[in-house]
């Protein structure tokens, strides 16, 4: 428990009559890659939204970030606290360069800092260069996201979430969707590499393949409820998981 970077308990999100996230209690440990799987519509994205401050007013629950209660804070505050995310639909800043995409997210801009930066133009943010090296974005730094391939765009999304100076945990919403098998494997290896360097992540995906291969520990969400948790081996043989996946998206895909 002590080394949980993120721990939610009793998280509830309701849309009208639909309980999209139902009493979800889970934790993500430091230096681990935690997986969250579940069929489409299970509430995975809503879970990330709720944790990162995008929630309807009637949500309830507790979100502890390294032991501190952060539930109900606004998204930008949470980002400053080190809780960063990517988006299923990417949501890049399409009309500024890749470097600017990262720059914007790289550090908190107080009014004072903004004025200082305005009158004494910035030094380049080292953190941005670091992350660009890490993800090999150097070549496309001056391009705009709309000019990039889908895989590159995904990396930019990850970079933007990683670059926050204070980043403590990264929530990835279906980062591998739309990538082919080889790309997915490559992408998984990249993530694994980051985690092995000490990053903490929550990887959300509806497709089990990637998650089973790279994660340390996995939770499964079905209709808003956590129905199973365990190591990849345990999950592979869990009757709940098999039922959910053969019952729902097994037929789908």
């Amino acid at each position, binding site marked *: 428990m002590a080394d949980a970077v993120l721990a939610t308990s009793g998280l509830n999100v309701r849309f009208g009559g639909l309980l999209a996230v139902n009493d979800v209690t889970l934790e993500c440990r430091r230096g681990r890659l935690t997986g969250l799987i579940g069929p489409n519509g299970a509430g995975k994205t809503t879970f990330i939204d709720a944790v990162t401050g995008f929630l309807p007013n009637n949500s309830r629950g507790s979100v502890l970030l390294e032991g501190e209660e952060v539930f109900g804070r606004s998204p*930008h505050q949470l980002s400053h606290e080190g809780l960063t995310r990517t988006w299923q639909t990417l949501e890049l800043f399409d009309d500024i360069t890749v470097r600017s995409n990262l720059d914007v997210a790289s550090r908190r801009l107080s009014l004072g800092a903004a004025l200082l930066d305005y009158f004494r133009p910035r030094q380049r943010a080292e953190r941005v260069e670091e992350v660009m090296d890490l993800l090999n974005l150097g070549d496309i730094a001056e391009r705009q996201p*709309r000019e990039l391939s889908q895989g590159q765009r995904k990396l930019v999304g990850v970079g933007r*979430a990683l670059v926050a100076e204070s980043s403590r945990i990264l929530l990835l919403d279906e980062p591998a969707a739309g990538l082919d098998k080889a790309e997915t494997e490559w992408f998984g290896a990249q993530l694994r590499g980051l985690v092995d360097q000490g990053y903490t992540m929550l990887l959300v995906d509806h497709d089990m393949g990637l998650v089973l291969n790279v994660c340390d520990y996995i939770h499964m969400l079905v209709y808003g409820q956590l129905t199973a948790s365990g190591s990849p081996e345990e999950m592979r043989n869990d009757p709940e998981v098999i039922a959910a996946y053969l019952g729902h998206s097994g037929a789908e895909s």
Partner: protein
Amino acid sequence: MLASLRPIERAGAAALGALAVAWVVGALLRRELFFDPVLFGLGSGAIIAALAIGLVVAFRASGVINFGHGAIATYVTYVYVSLVSDGQYPVPPLPNPVAPIEGIAGIEILDFPTFVSLGDSMGKVPALLIALATAAALGLVAHFAIFRPLRYAPVLAKVVASVGIMLFLQAAVVLRFGARAKATEPIFPNDPIDVLGARVGQDRLWVLGTVIVITAALWVLFRFTRFGIATRAGAENERFTTLLGFNADFQAGVSWVMASVLAGLVGILVAPITGVTPNFFTVLLISSLGAALLGRMSSFVIAAVAGLMLGIVDQELFRLELEWDWIPDIGIRRALPFVVIALAMVVRGESLPSRGALTVERLPEAVAPRITRGRVVGYGALIAVAFWLTVFAPFQYRGAMQNSMIGVILALSLVVVTGYVGQISLMQMALAGIGAFSVASFGTQAGVPLIPALTLAVASGVGFGLIAAIPSLRTRGASLAIITLASGLAIDEIFFRRTGWFGLDRIVKTTDPPELLGIEFGPNSGFVLSDGKIPTGGYGLFLLVVTALCCVAVMRLRRSRLGEQMLAVRANERAAAAAGVNVAAIKLSAFAVSSFFAALGGTLHAFNLGTYGHDSFGIFASLTVLAFAYLGGISTVGGAITAGTLFSEGIGIVVTNEWVIDVGPYTAYVAGFFLIGTAVYNNEGIDGFQRRQFHQLGAWLRRRWDRRVEVTADG
């Protein structure tokens, strides 16, 4: 039904109910105070309601809030009036193809027709039919030439295009019929009748009846017919409409025709009662926007009822202001549309039903200026030319330069808030007015020296701007455009049209020329290099310095972190928030910076004019500023500079008038035309267009050069 409302809506409904009961009791006790105004108010309310349901039709058809709706009503009404009174059908003003030759040769080759005569004067019915056919044609053009191509465009382009329609049609009316009010013969019987002891013109009740019938018909059409149901689906999801077996495009076209015929019909029916002026319906449209917003741009019934209520409340306040002295005379009545729109925003929540367009096209690119040798040379040359034009050139150019430089600063105010942060503001000239009126109050009236007076005036503008920016924290897009328009109207009505600190001295406001260190440098003050003609160069020189500083400041803003965050907010608010950007703070700072430039532009404009009234700072001035800023290029400093040359009496216009063709009376018309064109075909404005040409030219030259090098290397 009540259960489905949100708590705040329920509270609102309860308050309305209580008010209605109190009103009925009041009407029983004092009929003349609480019943008569209702009856009179229904007449004007009917016009507001009719325009409001037209707005709803257009919105449901294509997700556009048509700021040009009132202007369509105006144009069609003038066509009708002209046909009835002298059988003349106006030819839309078209460019005379040989005009440049005529201009240079100083002769008239072609007498371009302005009217086609259709007999002496025409009966009302054929005139009505022809006018409504014109309306239908306008609707078709609006759909096929403008809003259909803009289907996937960002909201900004749609708002700008509809503002363009408004400017264009109003200018067409002024060109063909003049700016004076027109009256026409009654259509409905107009002898007064008794209603429960109150005497009211019968024609008003006829109009009311017509509006009720139309509303009911639309309600039925959209609720029960396949056409209406498919339209509703279309507003939410285009693909779905197609699945229903309807051609979404055809449907939108039909709705546009309906909306514009409706606009024309309203205009024609009320013209005999109220008379028409070129901007009559557009001013009323602001109230209608409030009513339509209350119906979330989708309910005919709510929109119509809200429109009627607006008319009634307006009359009631008018009556009460006369009766009860203790009601403060702060023009609250004329600010009513603002109050309603603000309420609609709070009560009905932030979002309009959005159109499920599949993709949204890109916004105009906010190019980051890079310092290259070419650019330094270019800007150096620009400043040199500007300097010569401002100080040494003949007086008409000097004056034009002053206007243009003020225009540049006003346009910069929009570059920041609209170009960089994507928030549409239609109140910039109101903020300019706050600067203009208060600089005279602080400086000339209170005797504060120039620098502190300027500071105070600009700070006042920023204060007003920040207050008016609060809704931007909850709304965006077209809703924000509407509320800023209404804010501008409210500021105009509450402050500028009456005497006061932020208003007039008596009928105008006068400011002394600026003076620093004992040296006076107003447009008419003495100046060392003077040629004895006015304006002298001193004030222009001052403007040149200020304008250059402003341009540099905005360029630096674009390259700063703050600027980058602004662009991130423009691109995607949610993602920006998740990336740690405080979206509210960024929006407010953008509005603050923007108000700073607007108010500064206003103070400079005040010194330039010396004596000025409220009309320089009304809503039409604000719309025109947006038009020019967008035309020049809304998201770059170069665009603002281009915009400055286009401003009325600006250097571009004056030079064109003297050297090419006298566009004088056609300025607004041409500007409206090009504004629509810019919105539809080139959203980066003239500046972006030029930039692309330069790039192409550069690429071509480079290719030539490379080839030559290759050839030499080979040989």
